[in-house]
Each structure stands twice: as structure tokens, then as C-alpha cells.
């Protein structure tokens, strides 16, 4: 299970990095979205993998997942959305200013 | 008995997901792919319910509920984009 999780994180990161290195804003935005998935999964993994449970204490289940990384990741997801939105608007602003969607604000 | 039923259902759902993914990959049209995504959402909702049945807990039903209620929003905005370009007019 751990190996599968690590493979998932690695694959997501690879794809994200490749997209981040593209010259157009839209792929870079997609890359950032993928990267935030990868980072969130990684943070989540720091609480280890617990199957078929939940951080709810109303029923006395024996094994619990770690709630702290979950709380961290929850806000990270929402903040990630805010960041993506900001970059989307920046990209639009760049189109407005330069007339193109090249990340460097012009053709090179 | 129930366990077997659940296993079989999982198998069938898995098959459905695979077919959907193939449709997603092959297309041929963008509309096929959007529909594939929509189907994927539906399959996910079904899988969540099934998973809850298997574990005997209702904790994942909210996720299924949300997919059922709002999952189609993605399909809607994609269709809107394809037909009108502008999602919010």
C-alpha cells in the first residue's frame, strides 16, 4: 500500500513539474493544480495510511487515523483553491497587458 | 450472502469504470468525454454507497450525497463551455 501511495505522489509530481515548465499559462495552471494534489497527498501521508476508519470518536473504533494532518490538508485544499484563482486572474491580466498567454509576457 | 453481492457489485462497477475510462480516452468527440466524466461521477457515488455497505457505516454517504447533488455541476459547466464558450454570462 505504501509503495502504491508513493508511486501516486511521484507520478503526480512528475506530471506537475513537466507542466510547470511549459511556456503557456494554462498548462502551468494545470501543473499547479496537480502539484497541489501531490503536496496534499504527501502531507496526508505524514499521518500514515489507515484503512476503513475515520477520525470520529463517537463509536469506539480501535484504530484511528491521525486527525492532525487531515485538518492541515483540509485548509490546504481551500487555500490551494484561493491560490489557483489568484494565478488564473494573473494570467488573464497578463493576456490583457501583453495580448498573449506566454508565461514571460511575450513571445521569445 | 451480502458480502458476495457486494463483491460482485464492486466487480461490475469496476468494469463500468474501466469502460468509462476507455470512452474518456478514445472520445472521439469532446461530448463523449464530458459524458464519460459524468458517468465517472455517478459510478463514484455508487462505489461510495457500496463501500459504506461493505464497512457497515454511513459515514461516506455524505460524499455520495454531494456527488449526486453537485457532481453534475462539472458536466453542466463543461457543456456550457462547449456550446456557449462563456460559462457565466
Amino acid at each position, binding site marked *: 500500500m505504501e509503495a502504491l501511495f508513493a*508511486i501516486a505522489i511521484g507520478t503526480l509530481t512528475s506530471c506537475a513539474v513537466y507542466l510547470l515548465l511549459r511556456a503557456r499559462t494554462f498548462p502551468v495552471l494545470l501543473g499547479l493544480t496537480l502539484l497541489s494534489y501531490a503536496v496534499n497527498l504527501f502531507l496526508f501521508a505524514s499521518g500514515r495510511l489507515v484503512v476503513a476508519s475515520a477520525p470520529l470518536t463517537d463509536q469506539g473504533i480501535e484504530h484511528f487515523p491521525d*486527525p492532525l494532518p487531515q485538518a492541515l490538508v*483540509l485548509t490546504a485544499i481551500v487555500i490551494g*483553491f484561493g491560490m489557483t484563482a489568484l494565478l*488564473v486572474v*494573473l494570467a488573464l491580466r497578463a493576456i490583457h497587458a501583453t495580448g498573449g498567454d506566454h508565461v514571460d509576457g511575450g513571445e521569445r | 450472502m451480502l458480502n458476495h453481492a457486494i463483491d460482485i457489485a464492486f466487480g461490475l462497477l469496476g468494469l463500468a469504470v474501466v469502460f468509462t475510462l476507455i470512452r474518456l480516452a478514445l472520445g472521439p468527440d469532446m461530448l463523449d468525454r464530458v459524458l464519460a466524466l459524468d458517468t465517472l461521477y455517478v459510478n463514484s457515488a455508487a462505489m*461510495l454507497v457500496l463501500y459504506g455497505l461493505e464497512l457497515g457505516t454511513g459515514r461516506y454517504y455524505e460524499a455520495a450525497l454531494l456527488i449526486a447533488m453537485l457532481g453534475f*455541476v462539472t458536466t453542466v*459547466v463543461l457543456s456550457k463551455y462547449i*456550446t456557449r464558450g462563456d460559462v457565466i454570462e
Partner: protein
Amino acid sequence: MLLSIVILIPLLGAWLPTALSRALGVDPARTAAALAATSLALILSQAPDVLAGATLVSGWSWIPTAGLNATFRLDGFGLLFALLILGIGLLVILYARYYLSPEESKERFYGLLLLFMGAMLGVVLAENLLLLVTFWELTSLSSFLLIGFWRHDADARRGARLALMVTGAGGLALLAGVLLIGHVVGSFELSRVLAAGPVIKAHPLYETMLVLVLLGAFTKSAQFPFHFWLPHAMAAPTPVSAYLHSATMVKAGIFLLGRLFPAFAGTETWFYIVSGVGLTTQLFAAYVALFRHDLKGLLAYSTVSHLGLITLLFGFGTPAGAVAAVFHTINHAVFKASLFMAAGIVDHETGTRDMRRLSGLARFMPWTAALATIAAGAMAGVPLLNGFLSKEMFFAETLQVQWLGSRYWVLPLAATLASVFTVAYSTRFVHDVFFGPPPQGLARVPHEPPRWMKVPVEILVGLCLLVGLLPALIVDPLLRAAGGAVLQGPLPEYSLALWHGFNLPVLMSGVALTGGAIIYFARRYYFGLHGYRQQRYDGRTLAEGLVALAVAGSRRLVDGVANASLQRYVLLLLLATLGVGLVGARGLSLAPIAALTPPDALAVALTAALAIAAIAATALHTQRLLALVLIGVVGLVVSLVFVRFSAPDLALTQLLVEIVTVLLLLLALYFMPAESPRESSRFRRVRDTMVAVAVGLGAGLLAWALLTRPFSTIAWYYLEHAKPQGGGYNVVNVILVDFRGFDTLGEITVLGIAAVAILALLQELRLVAPQRDWDGRPWAVERHPLMLRVLARPLLPLALLVSVYLFLRGHNAPGGGFIAGLVTGTAILLQYVAYGSDWARERLPWNYSTAIALGLLLATATGLASWAFGAPFLTSTFGYLHWPVVGEFELASAMVFDLGIYVVVVGVVMVIVGRLGALSGSGGRGT
């Protein structure tokens, strides 16, 4: 306590001259004088104890973990300097009142002067070495401002910059040295450091510390080869030169040598470095001073030379040498300040400081001439004046030095030679200016300056005479206390008598006086030799060249790295991360240490789906819509992963954010080309793939290493206390709104800031909307399909109901403010999509940016409310309520906080997506 007040009066009072002058019309000089006099009186009240040999240490700890304490110390040495700073400071305040012309800002001048005075007092009264360094830098800064007082003068600005550069760099070296001292001694308190001399001297880092500290001292005291800033600092107003650049600030380096004398002095390294630099400086500067035509230039080099002499005396490392150094410090401050003031008077009255144009002024200003002559005599070491006494001690000391062995004659010879030049330039200062034929071509006829402008000079010259005639009575107690404090031990035998019988020092004095006179009167010959070399002795060219070189180098480096290409930056960043990761991962074993969980079919399927979708999205990224759909698949799978690994809250959040993100990216895509051109070269694609694979491999291995290490967690604390203390079964939600509520408050604030930034960016943004789709077909005619409208409308109340449900039970089951807010936001957005933003805004006329502010206020107010009950910020409480139909219901104050989160999230989603959607609204209005 008292000592800190002594420092704070001028430091904090620096704004008073301006304030009182503006408000009440009080003469700023009076304000400054009153403040300085108060500090002086406070110091004098402690003087009897200190003169009796006491060391007063007081203060309080400030940042104890860093060893930084606000501790102060008053001993004989500190007292001596405090008296010089405040006494001469008072005289300079008086003098400057007449020196500055009426149109110059006296308020600014006195404010800066007080600032400097406070900083300088801080240096000499600090007990903590870090505090000393802080004040030390403050003197550099205030000196910079004072040198550049005449802002319109380019020379003044350059001189100020040069001084700041040299002394500031020295200050950094000193800081490094002091940190090392603290490391070696284990404390920054002077009392401990001075007592730890043997430890410091035996430490392997001794040379390093010594050099660093000396760099600080030498730059400040203008020792060769750092002397060049001082002559350029003469662009300052003359009172500043008299105060900072002869009597006090340049003496800070001397002070440091004396202060750390017990800790560092007495080794061979100390002798060779300190006395070597001192001797070179003394000889070289005395020689150069003779050939300066500017009065202040001559005095500047003379100051450098005398500072060299004092440094040389400390360099001997002997108790008697140290006492002589302290004595000469006093004498030099007194006569040099008066000489600067006299030069200022000449400048003030004649309009020039060029000795080639000045002549015979004695007949116009006989009293000033007499004062200047006496002061110059003291500088030259004429008997019956104070300079003679310390010079005799100096000569006597040069004869005692043991280190040089058979070449013992070098030091006395060089000292005599330097004194010959001293006598020569002193004679020149007096003879060129005040004697000879009447001056030609002066702008105005000179006359005696105002009465009170001469008083400070008279007082200082009077001191020269009194010390010279009655040393034992006037200066001995202070010298004894100061010397004792420098040595931190018994004083050597010394005598301040005028006449010790005919001995070698007297002979050396005689040689110096005669030789100096001969050189001066044969000056025509020498001047002819050196006239053309005037400007060559200048380190400024070198310093400014170095700066230009550094600037050019940095520019080249920046141009090379920062080519304004995001791709380049990201690549460099990733490579650097890889490099750091590789270094950090050396020797890391990948063998699992903790027990592994077995994989199952579901996990394999999820991973496969995730990987395939992500890779497909990347491979097909040029077809943007398709890539976006695939990203949507990835997001869906990620939320299923969260479900599988027991995180229902995360699954819900991920699901909703995914929906909104797709909407957001589609809105942006409308204004962008539908496909990316395949413009990257093959090389670049291959390179990027390699980098991506490497980074992904690194991330995967890191995740693997993390997952296979033993696990220790503090989760049990939260799990145990969530119900009893936070009142909720859903531990994730309790952490968010209760245990770590402060973090969450920060996070929703960040969200709010992002929304505000987006609003600002969207202002007046106009974009051209495409008229046809990517295949060139016209858009569909129907704007708001009937099916969608019918479906969307009843969904809103349903979704709101679900929101309330998720919100209310969020404390005990998956849900909460974040999730409920996202549900509400998505549902409202659907109305926007189905009916258009104009229609939706008309029916839901809320101002969402206000909602963000209200939500933040609500959350903060919940936190503040706990103060009212004497509990820390954001302490939560809860109770149970019996509702008629619903039954037992739990009410927690954290719920109000959660409500704040809810409102912020709804507001942020609506502000971001709603405004972005309105961008293309009817007629493309960009509101």
C-alpha cells in the same frame, strides 16, 4: 537604571529641539544644551564613587537566550569618555549656535547631534558587548547624517557615504568578533569577558577574534589603511568635525582598544598588529598633514596621526603604555577640539580655509590667534602644556619595549621622526594663518568672532594650560580611575611631574621641536617636491572603485540568472531543490523500517486511475479542454483516495473544490487559445521530461521513506480531548475550530486577502471574447437552456438545506464551515451559470466582499469574546440545549467561529468566481 537614563535623555530627546522650536519657539541650541547638561549632571552625581574605584553595573535581561542584556556599566574609563562626550558636546552645542548661519536648519543639526551623543554614550556605558555593537553602528549612522548635513554639497554626500561604508563594514567585523568572544567566553557581559583574558588568549580562535575586533577599532579610528575616510568627512560642518572627528567618535576605536585591553593585550600578535598599525599611521599621517593646504585637512591628518600614537601606546601591551594612551586621549580631545573650533572661526571670518590664501590674521583677531597658538603648542608637545606631558610618557614608553630585541632603537627613532613632522605642521598651522604679511584678496575684512563663539575655545585652551601646569591636581584622579578601569588591576608607577631631570625623553622632545622648526622654515624646498603629489594619497578612489566593481559584478550575475523568464526560474528552482534533496539524502536507506500494510485491489485500481489520468493530462496538455477534463478525473480519484484512507472531511472538501476549480479554469479558458502551440524544441521537451522524472522520483522516494519510518504521533491527545474539551466527536473539525483555531483564523484571513487581491486585479480588466469556438463554429444561440434553469432553481434551497445540515453536525460528523460554505457557494454559482450573472445578482443582491469582512470579524470576535471571561484568545466553551422537537442539542462557541469560516468561504468563492464570470457579462462589462 540611572545609566540607561543618561543615554536615553539625548537619544530620545533628539526630536525635542525641533518640537520645542516649532511649538514654543525655543532656541534649539538651548534645548540641546539643557538635555546634555542634565545627562552630565547625572553622570557627575556618580563621579565620586567611580573616582574612588567603584564599577557600577546595572540593567535588566532583555533577550537572555541570545545573551543580549540591556546592561550598563560605569567605571573610570567609561566616566572619562562620558565626560568628554558630554563636556565637549556642550561646548560644541554653544559653538555651533554661532557657527551655523541663520538659514540653516538648527533643529535638524541639534537633533542629529543629540542622537549621536546618545549613541556614543551607549558605546562607552554598555556592559553587554552586543549592546555596545548596536550603539557602535548607531554612531556610524548618525555620523553619516551629520557629515552629509549640507545635503546640497556633493562632496559632503560622497564623504558621508564613504565614512558609512568604511565604519559600517568595520562594525560588521566587530559584530563577528564579539559573537566569537561570546562563544569563547560564554557570555557577552564585559565583566565576564574582561576576567576571561587568559582563556581568550589561549583559545585557538584568538587571532581570528583579535583581527575582527581590531578591524572594527581601526576603521572607526581611521587607522592606516582605513584612514582615508576621515579627511573626506571634513566636508561636515566644523562643529561636527570638532566633536565627532577629533574628540569623540574616532575615539570609539581607541575606547574599544582600551576596553578590551585586559582580554586581548600583551601577546606578540597584539603587539605586532596594533603597534605596527599605530606606528605606520602616526608617521604616515604626520608626514601627509604637513602638505595639506586646507586647514581642516591638516587637522584631519593630524588627528589620524595622534590616533595612531594612541594605538601604538596600547599596542605596547604594558600597563604604563595603557596609562599613557589614556592620558593622551584626554589631551588630544581637548587641544584638537579647540583647534578645530579655531579653524572654524578663521573659516567663518575669512570665508576660506586655504592656508595659501591666509596670512597675518593675528593683527585682525589677536585673541583667537593667541588661543590657537597655545592649542597648537599643546599639539606639538611644547613644555608647560598638556600635550608635552603625554608625549614625554610616550617617548619614555618607546624606550621600554621588549619585543624588538636588538632592534629596540626602531621605535624611539620613528616616534621622534613622527614628532618632528607634528611640530612642523603645528608650526605651519599657526605661522601660515596668523603671522606674516596681511592677507590678500579676502572676501571681507576679518575680525574677532562673537564673544560666545570664543568661549568654548577659551575653556578648552584653559584646560590645556591647567593640565600642563598642574597635572597632579587637575587630571590625576580621573587618569587614575580610568587607567585602573582599563587595566582591571593595579596601576603602574608613574609621575605627572613636569620635570624628571635631564633624560632621553627630554632629549627626544628637544630634537622634535628643533627638527620640526627647521623643516617648517625650509618648507619651500619640500613643498616644491610634493606639490604635484597632493591627491595621490587617497583611498577614496580605491574604495569607490571597489564599489563600482561590486555593482558591476552583481549586475552581471543578476543579468545572467534573472532573464525574466519564468521557465528559467522554475527550472533553476527545481534543480536547486533536487541538489539540496540529493545532499540531504546521502546515506539514506530505503529499506522499510516500519511494518507495511498489504496492498489490495481497490488501492491498485485507484493508483492506476490516478496515474493514467495524470499522465494523459500531461501528454495531451496542448488540447486544453481535454486536459482539464482529465484533471477533473484526477481530482475525483484523489477524493476517493481520501475516502479509502479514512478522511471523509477531506473527501468532501476535495470534491467541492474540484468542481469550483474546473469552473474557474473554464472561465479563464474562454479568453485563452483553446490549444497550446507546440513550440517547445525537442531538446527542451526531453530536458524537461528528465527534470520532471527526477523530481517526481525524488518526491516518490521521499513519500516512501516517510511512510516506511516508525510513526509517533500526538494524535492521541486530540482524540482523547476532542469530546471532553472541544465538545465534538469529529476530531478534524474540533482541531480546525478549537485546538488550532488560531491557525484557521490565519488561513481564512489569507483567503480573504487573496479575494481582495483578485478584486484589485480584475479592476478595469477588459478582454476580448472570442466569437466562435475552436473549430470555427458559431456559439449556440440559446444562452440559458430551459433544462438547466428548471434543474438549477430547486437545487438552491435543497443545497442550502444540506449546507445547514453539514454545518450543524460538522462538530460531530463530517462537515463543518469549510464544507458547508463550499456547498452553498457551488449552489449559488449554479444559479449564475443557469440564469446569467445579472439575473442572479438581482435576486441574490449580497455584497460578497462585505461578507468576507463580516465573516472575519465574526471569527475574530469569537476569539476576543473569550477575553471577556478571562480566558486566552479563542478559548471555546460549549453546553447542551434542549430544543422542543429536535431534542438534546449541543451548542459550542466554536460554532460561531465555524460560522465565520462559513461566511468567509462563501464570500471568497462568490467574489472570485462571480466576479470572474461577470468579466464577460452582457457586453463584456468589466465590473
